[in-house]
């Protein structure tokens, strides 16, 4: 009885519960459905949810625990002889000696390493792949493999039993409780509300997870590099030694140039994307014929899906040389990896974030408001600027925020187009680097993995997280202040 099948049975029970609950509700109402507290569907859902959810939680919990428990049992079940037979073949002489010395007390004799190695062999055997196991140990391990398979079957059947019992019991109980007075809707809605809460908390968990995965390493980083130097240092050059005999050249960890670089590029991107996106959205929702709108909107959305690597190429091979040529023609020297090129291309990428989302909220503004304004003799553009846009403001700001966020978080375009030089400048024609670029290139680079340089990645991530947090708090305040609720 595999887990998949168990889940299948569970699903079936749940569905059956729905049907049973529903029909019983109709039955107890004697056909006069209106006498029920809730509509029959709710009685069905009530039974289905109670039959399904607890048992599902059980299955999930079991899935998490299954492997460790069973492996522990299997290893525990090995006799010293079997272990010895295995060790004689598989272990180096030195290890073998220590193992044999302790063989009586198996728990001590087997190191974590041995356990892992044993497990691979046993697992492969149990999975029916003896060809992958050294022929000499097959005999010794065959019982363990059989044991494992036996345990698995047993465990799966137990689970199946439990699940059926739990689901069936819940089904029967809830089913028997069905009466016209039962507040099935309230019950179901409470469950659903809790599920909804759970969903919104997932976002919070994600944040917690991110902070956690950044925090510890960041703390380690800050023991090597002072926080103040990191936050306020004006020089970023993580050329620390890759090997001990090398010299970490300047090895400066001042993150300010990275943050200005990030902001510079994000700003350029928004200078492109905000007007282009917003004007496109306005044109599409207010001026363009329906057909044009239904064509252009999805076309623009393609822009959001072009792989960022492609944009990277586009920036460095098409846009950057173009900008440089224009600059050269005007006698301005422009770096071939200018922030401008990266920013513009990134702006193009996030255009649909603004255009599509804004288009939707603009379309949602009730017609009566437009009528009110047009009726006063406003032109269309005046209506849009003064009535429609303010009414759609929360959604538009949301779209803008999303676009900014995307710009700040984007990696590949800047990695390719903006370069790696941490210049502290606000000149869009110079080459700058961003936080994400440093994170990416340090993480997949060839450096040692616990040097200050690697750890700086986590600190960068953390600080970027805090910076955007601050930006978002401000944005929230603004939106709350200017929100215009229509209707």
């Amino acid at each position: 009885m595999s887990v998949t099948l168990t889940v299948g049975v569970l699903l079936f029970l749940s569905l059956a519960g729905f049907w049973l609950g529903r029909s019983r509700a109709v039955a107890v109402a004697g056909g006069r459905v209106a006498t029920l507290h809730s509509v029959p569907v709710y009685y069905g859902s009530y039974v289905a949810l109670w039959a399904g959810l607890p048992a599902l939680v059980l299955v999930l919990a079991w899935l998490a625990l299954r492997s460790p428990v069973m492996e522990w049992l299997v290893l525990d079940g090995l006799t010293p002889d079997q272990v010895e037979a295995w060790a004689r073949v598989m272990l180096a002489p030195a290890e073998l000696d220590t193992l044999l010395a302790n063989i009586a007390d198996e728990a001590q004799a087997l190191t974590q390493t041995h356990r892992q190695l044993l497990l691979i062999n046993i697992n492969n055997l149990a999975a029916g792949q003896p060809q992958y196991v050294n022929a000499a140990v097959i005999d010794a391990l065959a019982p363990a493999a059989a044991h494992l398979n036996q345990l698995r079957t047993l465990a799966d059947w137990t689970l199946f039993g439990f699940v059926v019992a739990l689901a069936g019991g819940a089904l029967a109980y809830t089913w028997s409780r069905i009466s016209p007075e039962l507040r099935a809707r309230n019950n179901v809605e409470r469950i659903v509300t809790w599920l909804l809460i759970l969903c919104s908390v997932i976002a919070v968990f994600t944040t917690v997870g991110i902070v956690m995965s950044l925090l510890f390493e960041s703390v380690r980083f800050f023991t090597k590099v002072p926080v103040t130097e990191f936050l306020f240092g004006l020089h970023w050059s993580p050329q620390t030694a890759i090997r001990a005999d090398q010299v970490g050249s300047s090895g400066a960890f001042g993150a300010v140039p990275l943050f200005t670089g990030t902001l510079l590029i994000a700003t350029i991107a928004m200078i492109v994307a905000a007007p282009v996106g917003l004007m496109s959205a306005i044109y599409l929702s207010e001026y363009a014929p329906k057909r044009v709108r239904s064509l252009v909107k999805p076309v623009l959305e393609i822009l959001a899906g072009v792989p960022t690597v492609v944009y990277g190429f586009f920036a460095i091979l098409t846009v950057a040389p173009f900008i440089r040529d224009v600059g050269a023609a005007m006698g301005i020297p422009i770096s071939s990896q200018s922030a401008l090129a990266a920013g513009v291309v990134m702006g193009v990428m996030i255009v649909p974030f603004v255009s599509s989302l804004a288009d939707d909220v603009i379309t949602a503004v009730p017609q009566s408001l437009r009528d009110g304004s047009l009726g006063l003799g406003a032109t269309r553009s005046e209506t849009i600027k003064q009535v429609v846009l303010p009414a759609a403001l929360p959604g538009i700001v949301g779209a803008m925020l999303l676009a900014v966020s995307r710009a700040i978080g984007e990696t590949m375009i800047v990695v390719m187009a903006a370069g790696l030089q941490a210049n502290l400048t606000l000149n869009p024609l110079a080459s700058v680097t961003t936080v994400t670029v440093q994170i990416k290139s340090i993480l997949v680079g060839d450096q040692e993995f616990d040097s200050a340089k690697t750890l700086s990645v986590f600190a960068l991530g953390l600080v970027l997280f805090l910076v955007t947090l601050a930006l978002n708090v401000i944005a929230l305040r603004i939106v709350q202040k200017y929100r215009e609720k229509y209707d």
Partner: protein
Amino acid sequence: MDSMTLNKPEQAATTTQPVKVSARDVKVYYGAKRALHGVNVDIYQNEVLALIGPSGCGKSTFLRTINRMNDTIDICRVEGLITLDGHDIYDPRLDVVQLRARIGMVFQKPNPFPKSIYENIIYGPKLHGLATRKDEFDAIVETSLKRAGLWNEVKDRLHEPGTGLSGGQQQRLCIARAVAVSPEVILMDEPCSALDPIATAHIEELIDELRESFTIAIVTHNMQQAARVSQRTAFFHLGDLVEVGDTEEIFTNPRDERTQGYITGRYG
């Protein structure tokens, strides 16, 4: 346009005023459905024309046709001729924006902007450059709100959102907003439907006062109101303009029996 010659407007020219708005054989369609079947009517300068008729007969539709608000409804199509001061308002060269500035409108469902009361009022004047300085705007806000009889109720909360007003207050706000731009013609779609008698009286006074300088068309379901404020009345029925004439005559001596039925219905 050949139907134009068919039926000469069936109204006696009781006023000596020039014709301000004139409709000839106006037909309006919503998709395939015809909402108006050839309406002919003139509205004279400085008069109040009341439009009455059962619900769904096309009063609002006609009103919206006059200042081309129907342009905003995709499926809506207008045939026939409507003129303002003798100029075809559906002339492609005509400027809709100016038209709508000249023909103001109060909608049937109050639709205040989700802005403050103050901003709701100065929206129009600002657009048309009627004022530039803060004190001018303040003055406009005050007079408009006073005219609509809303001033006392909202003078302390001018900067709160207009959408937080009661139904009747919203309606008066919309009237004040329309009046603030001083249009030449004002179209009012049941301006008093949500108003209590006192406020209604106030609006009726306003209408009387506005008539001095403007031309007004008003939709109402209240016969007494029609009788009180209007010089002439037009009766619509199922998309037809059944009858238009002096208010007194319509109410006392209607020519068409449908009018008669409606007027003398249980609720005179």
